[in-house]
């Protein structure tokens, strides 16, 4: 059901009306209680106004029944509210398996975005109507937060790890992108536009942008350029673990613990390989900290994710992969 009330931003994603339903329930529930309390205060203040200089109140001052009533009813309402909020929350952070991934990099004070087909934009994001879209985001400097009010989604964008949001645009148009986490002088200038187009318009738009290679293809090049392939190919003699089909699986570490082979782990393993060494391997890999840009990292990660046998579809399927995915 779609509805538009004053003070509600446009509902431009499939999830927006779900959030707005929750909002309407919250508003109705709290209006009821506010009117109840304010009404009682006003009625009592008038009805029991002081009649004489020396008059005092009654000795009606305890009631177990009332105390139980106004403890249990609010508790039940609170638990119901919690459950509804949780349902919407999981919906907002659990991308479907077929979500198309875009790379987002925040920096003071702009959003750099790369399409899966390689096109780049700054402070603009073009997306086709009806396509489940996942943004995989990181920051080059401080914490930012990617926020599209019309989609009712937001996630902080952190340096050193990946977070993500997803949405299915449901209405063509232009919508604000805001940075929602204070990030310095031009925080309020770190804004942009999402443009939702019909799939045909989107294809036409893509064709007008001179696109470099798709990020995964650039990743292939980088994989060779940084000589990753000398150790990390199945045929390279076992100096490093093979990366084929590893994404989203559990990875055993030298210290005996397990971690998930996800974007954040890959990123850390490139920049600071000794932090979490894979079980059964020597810590011989050189650190690439400071030698590789965030965008190149994203391209490499995308390439590794999609290595044959890779199972990138499961990447976002667990709600725990929101945000930190540590």
């Amino acid at each position, binding site marked *: 059901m779609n509805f538009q009330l004053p003070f509600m931003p446009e509902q431009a994603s499939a999830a927006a009306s779900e959030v707005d339903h929750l909002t309407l329930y919250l508003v109705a529930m709290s209006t009821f209680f506010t009117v109840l309390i304010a009404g009682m205060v006003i009625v009592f203040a008038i009805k029991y106004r002081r009649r004489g200089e020396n008059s*005092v109140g009654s000795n009606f001052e305890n009631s177990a029944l009332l105390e139980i009533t106004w403890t249990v009813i609010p508790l039940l309402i609170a638990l119901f*509210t*919690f459950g509804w909020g949780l349902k919407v929350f999981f919906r907002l952070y659990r991308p479907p398996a077929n979500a198309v991934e875009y790379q987002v990099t925040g920096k003071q004070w702009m959003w750099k975005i790369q399409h899966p087909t390689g096109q780049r934009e700054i402070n603009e994001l073009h997306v086709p109507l009806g396509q489940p879209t996942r943004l995989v985001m990181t920051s080059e400097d401080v914490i930012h937060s990617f926020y599209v009010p019309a989609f009712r989604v937001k996630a902080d964008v*952190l340096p050193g790890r990946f977070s993500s949001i997803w949405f299915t645009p449901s209405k063509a148009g232009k919508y604000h992108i805001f940075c929602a986490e204070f990030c310095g002088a031009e925080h309020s200038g770190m804004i942009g536009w999402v443009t939702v187009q019909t799939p045909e318009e989107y294809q036409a738009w893509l064709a007008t942008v001179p696109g470099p290679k798709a990020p995964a293809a650039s990743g292939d090049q980088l994989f060779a350029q940084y000589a990753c392939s000398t150790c990390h190919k199945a045929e390279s003699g076992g100096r490093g673990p093979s990366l084929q089909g590893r994404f989203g699986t559990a990875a055993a570490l030298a210290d005996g613990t397990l971690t998930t082979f996800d974007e954040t782990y890959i990123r850390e393993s490139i920049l600071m390989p000794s932090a979490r060494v894979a079980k059964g391997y020597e810590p011989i890999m050189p650190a690439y900290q400071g030698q590789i840009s965030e965008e190149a990292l994203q391209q490499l990660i995308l390439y590794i994710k999609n290595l044959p046998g890779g199972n990138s579809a499961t990447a976002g399927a667990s709600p725990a992969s929101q945000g930190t995915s540590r």
Partner: protein
Amino acid sequence: MSATAVPAPTTAPAERPNFLNATHGLKSWLLTLDHKRVGILYLLAVSCYFLLGGIFAMLVRIELLTPAGDLMLPDTYNRVFTGHGVTMVFFFLIPAIPGVLGNFLVPLMIGAKDVAFPRLNLASWYLYMTGGALMLYGVLNGGVDTGWTFYPPYSTSYTTTNVLIVGIGVFINGFSSILTGLNFMVTIHRMRCPGMTWFRLPLFIWGQYATSLIMVLGTPVIAITLVLLVLERLFHLGIFDPAKGGDPILFQHLFWFYSHPAVYIMILPSMAVISELIAAFSRKRIFGYHFVAFASIGIAVLGFVVWGHHLYVSGQSVYAGAVFSLLTMLVAIPSAVKVFNWTMTLYQGSVSLATPMLYGLGFIGLFTIGGLTGVFLGTLGFDVHVHDTYFVVAHFHYVMVGGTLMGYLGGLHFWWPKITGRMYPEFWAKLAALLVFVGFNLTFFPQFLLGYMGMPRRYHAYPPEFQVLNVLSTAGASVLALGFILPTIYLIWSLKAGKIAGNNPWAARGLEWETTSPPPTENFLVQPIVTREPYDYYEAAEEAAGRAVAPGPSH
């Protein structure tokens, strides 16, 4: 003692010995060990910080009149809103009620001569002033632009502003909070006069006790966090900045582990004041005394396990978010219990709408909205959209200004005759209360709508569709400012020209009303012995009328 108003004495209070005229000279104030004088030192200091924070707030509101950032540079604006937050949170809201009303009233209400550690009490004030001086130097001399939340890595590796000096100021100020909390706890445990059992304590004392618990247990965590922040900024230790191997989310956990309970440091004392106001101006025992008392403790304890609701969209795991959301819902319950009990106290009461009661009733309304919108924000699916928007700003101002400040002003008016011996002018005070209520709602209600429309907080410039609501908000802030200027004028005026108050102008039943106004330095000329509890209006009136009453609820 009956519930009739004591006739005002004809002699001016200055002629009787009291804590104000016992000794003279600046030194007698700056080296005082009298808890009442320390309370007045706090009153002067928090008023100055409130003025400063208010000026910052007005600058913010004026800048936001127009969508373009045309009054200040972005850098200036960021320093101004940070100055507003740091000043108001750490140097007004946290110390205001415990420092001023708590210091003045805790010993009086329990029949003690002073707090347990008078020297420590004075030391608390000096720590507060030292921290405040460093903060002032930092904020006014170059400023700091991180927001009062000091999030790294921006605060440790990027900003060039005075994070260090302001951070150290807040750190030192924390010790003032810890010592005050410690002092109150020991005082309440050890210094109660004969007959003052735990369940004969005024609810104000229960509220101060719950607050002290949080001050003592929570404040050390912000102290450690600030030390780590300073170490990272000064010596480049990689604690929070991921570029140095740190974890920025760790800071957010540590920061909110204190700063969420700190919200209860601000609101619990105000709730404590409200309980006194509602009882005194309904001339009725507070409804469900035990429930109200234990709700304070419940809020203090639960307040420690909800910090993660500040991190729903920060990168904390989704499951952690779920747990914190559930716990957040639970903390709403004791708050609701309090509101219902206050409201039921009015039922069959003898309700007077004197100024302090106007603040008390205003508190109930505004805190209801503040509390319920807290439930909105605790609801995961809703928070994602409005997190870090003006919805959050509106919510916490409803709690902080609508709650804490209303309680503070109500309490100040209620106990003003006890503190100074003089009455404030009722007409002007009612007018000011009305201005505060109207101005407050006009300032902050539009911000709920702005937030839902998507306007992020801490924005120096904003898209034009948000302007109308911002103009309303700024207009409201002007009315609110008027509502604060008025009391400043008439309260000062009343010191010389106010009507002589008498010992008990409200015919209230608390122990503090049994001594003279202003009280003598030793509080009570004879050792008080308590044989009843503080809200026995009904029993006292029956006795005065010569009717036998069944003894009040056994305690």
